[in-house]
C-alpha cells in the first residue's frame, strides 16, 4: 500500500516564556522579539504518529508542512531529521495576520498542490492560539472527514482507520477511512528522539518554499485580507486580583475565608 501522509506543524512561542510576554498597547498583539520559539508540543505527537504508520507501511511518504516566517524552517529541519521525507514552508508576507480559516485555506491549497493525500495529521491545538479550528477547517476545505481529540489511531491494509477519541464523559471508538484528517492529543504516543543518522540524512532532504504565487493563490484570499476585520477588538489588561492574604491560625483563616465566600454568595 502506497501512502502519502501530510503532517501540519507550527512554530510557537515556548509556553515556558508566556509569563514574561508583553502586549503591544496599540494592537494588543504579542511582542515576539527575543522570545524563544519551539515546535508546537503536540505537533511532535502528530509527527510521531506519522512515523509509526511509516514503520508499518514501508511505501509511505511523509511531508511536513508549515506556514510561517523564514525561521519556521527550523521546525521543518527537525521534522526531516526525525524521518519525514520532504518538507514545505509556506512563506509570504501576504500570509501574515491570517485567522484560522485563512490559515486553513492556505494549508489546504498547499496540500492540494502536493497531490493525492491519504492522511493528514496535526496536533489537536496550538500552544499559542489554542483555537483548535485549523484542523477541522482544512478537512472541510478539502472535503474529507476529520477526527479531533484522538488518543489512539490504527490504520489497516484496506485503508480503514480505527480511531479512539476523548470526549467529556469517556471516549468514542470510530471506524473511518482514508483520506481523512486526524487531530491528536499528547497522550497518543511518546515521540522519538532525533538520532545522529537522522540529522545527517536530513541534509540530503529538501525544504520546498512556496509563496502566494507559488501556491497559485492571490493575496486577497490569504492572510489578514482574507480574515474578518473584527479581530481588531479593544483590549484591556488582565484581571488584577486582590491577593488578600488571610491571617491567623489555619482554623481562623479558613473561618474568615468561608465567611467571606458565603457573603459573596459563592458557598
Amino acid at each position, binding site marked *: 500500500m502506497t501512502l502519502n501522509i501530510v503532517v501540519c506543524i507550527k512554530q510557537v512561542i515556548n509556553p*515556558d516564556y508566556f509569563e514574561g510576554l508583553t502586549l503591544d498597547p496599540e494592537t494588543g498583539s504579542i511582542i515576539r522579539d527575543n522570545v524563544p520559539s519551539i515546535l508546537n508540543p503536540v505537533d511532535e505527537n502528530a509527527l510521531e504518529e506519522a512515523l509509526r504508520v511509516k514503520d508499518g507501511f514501508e511505501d509511505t511518504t511523509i511531508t511536513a508542512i508549515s506556514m510561517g516566517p523564514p525561521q519556521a524552517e527550523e521546525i521543518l529541519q527537525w521534522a526531516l531529521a526525525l524521518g519525514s521525507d520532504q518538507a514545505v514552508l509556506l512563506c509570504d508576507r501576504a500570509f501574515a495576520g491570517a485567522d484560522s*480559516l485563512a490559515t486553513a485555506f492556505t494549508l489546504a491549497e498547499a496540500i492540494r498542490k502536493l497531490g493525492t493525500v491519504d492522511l493528514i495529521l496535526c496536533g489537536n491545538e496550538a500552544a499559542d492560539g489554542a483555537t483548535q*479550528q485549523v484542523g477541522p477547517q482544512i478537512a472541510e476545505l478539502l472535503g474529507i472527514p476529520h*477526527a479531533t*481529540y484522538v488518543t489512539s489511531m490504527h490504520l489497516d491494509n484496506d485503508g480503514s482507520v480505527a480511531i479512539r477519541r476523548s470526549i467529556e464523559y469517556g471516549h468514542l471508538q470510530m471506524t*473511518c477511512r482514508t483520506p481523512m484528517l486526524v487531530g491528536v492529543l499528547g497522550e497518543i504516543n511518546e515521540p522519538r528522539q532525533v538520532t545522529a543518522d537522522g540529522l545527517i540524512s536530513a541534509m540530503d532532504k529538501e525544504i520546498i518554499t512556496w509563496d502566494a504565487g507559488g501556491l497559485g493563490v492571490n493575496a486577497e484570499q490569504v492572510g489578514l485580507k482574507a480574515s474578518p476585520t473584527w479581530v481588531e477588538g479593544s483590549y484591556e489588561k488582565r484581571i488584577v*486580583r486582590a491577593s488578600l492574604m488571610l491571617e491567623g491560625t489555619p482554623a481562623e483563616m479558613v473561618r474568615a475565608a*468561608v465567611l467571606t465566600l458565603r457573603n459573596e454568595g459563592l458557598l
Partner: protein
Amino acid sequence: MSILVIAEAAGAGFRPSTFELLSHARALGEPASVILVGDDAANKEQLDGLAAKVVTVAGANLSPYSADSWVDVLAQAIQAEGADVVLFSEGQRTRDLLPRIAARLGLSAVTAGMGLTKDGGSYVVHRPAQGGKAYMDLVVEGGSALIAFRPNSFATDAAPVDGTAYEEKTIDAAANRTPVVEQVAEEGKKIDVTEAAVVICGGRGMKSEENLALLEELADILGGAWGVTRALVDAGWKGADHSIQVGKSGKTVSPGLYFACGISGATHHIMGMDTSKVVVAINTDPDALMFEYADYGITGDALQVIPEIVKEVRAVKG
C-alpha cells in the same frame, strides 16, 4: 435581532451551559430559538418557557453523535433559522463541530466567549485573548459568527417566557464518514471539571496520591469537581488523570469559585484557570506565585487547611 442556541444534552437533561445561554438571551430581551439534534431532543420539554422556539432535528446517521453528519445537518439547520448570532457551549463536541460549520457557511468562529452584550445592531463578545494575557471585546455584526461560551459565564435566573413554540424537522446528512461504533463512559469522568461551578485543584503540595481524597471530599460537599496540575499527572499518581488536568495542556476551567491547593502557580497552570471568578489559594510558601492570581490567600499546608474548610463548611451549612 435574533439569537440561536445549539443545545447540548448531558445525562437526563442538558449541560448547565445550555441553560445559561438561554437565560442570557432572555436577559438581553431576545429569547432564543434553540436547535436540538438527534438524541439531544429526548428531554426537550425541559426547555419549556426558556426559549422562544425549540427546533428538533431528526434524520439518518444522527444517533449516536458523529462529527461528519452533525456538521452537515447543523449547517443546514442554522442556515434555515438565519439568526444574527449562533451560540454554543464550549467543550470537546463544540470544538469538533463549530470550526467546520463556520468554514462551510463562511462565518467567523469565535471561541472562549465569556460575555455577550448588544451594541445597537451588533453584538459584543467579551473573551480572553493572547493566551489569557488580556481580554478583548469583539464586535460581531449580525449573521457573521458562531460563538462558543465557557461554562459559568452567565446567570440562569432570567424570567421565563410565555409559551415556547415547537418545530420538528427532518434533515438527512449527506454522509457519515466518521461513524461511532462504541461509546464508552469512563469512571471518574462523570462531573466534568470544566462544567463545575466550584473547582478544587491540587498540586505538588498534596504530597501523595492518597491525599487526593481530600480534594474529592471538599468537592463533594461543595457540589463541585476536583482537578490536578500537570505535575501530578506526569508523576502518574492514581486518580490524577489527564481528563481532570487543569492547565494549558489540559482543561480550561472558569468556575465561580476556584481553590488552588498546594499549587505553585506555574504559567501553564494559570492559563487553564485565570478566568475563574473568585480564586482561593492555599500554599505553605507565602511567596508562591499562585497568591498573585488569587483573591484570597491562606498560608498553610493544604493537607491541614482542606479538612478545616470541610469542617467549617459543614458547620455553616448545617
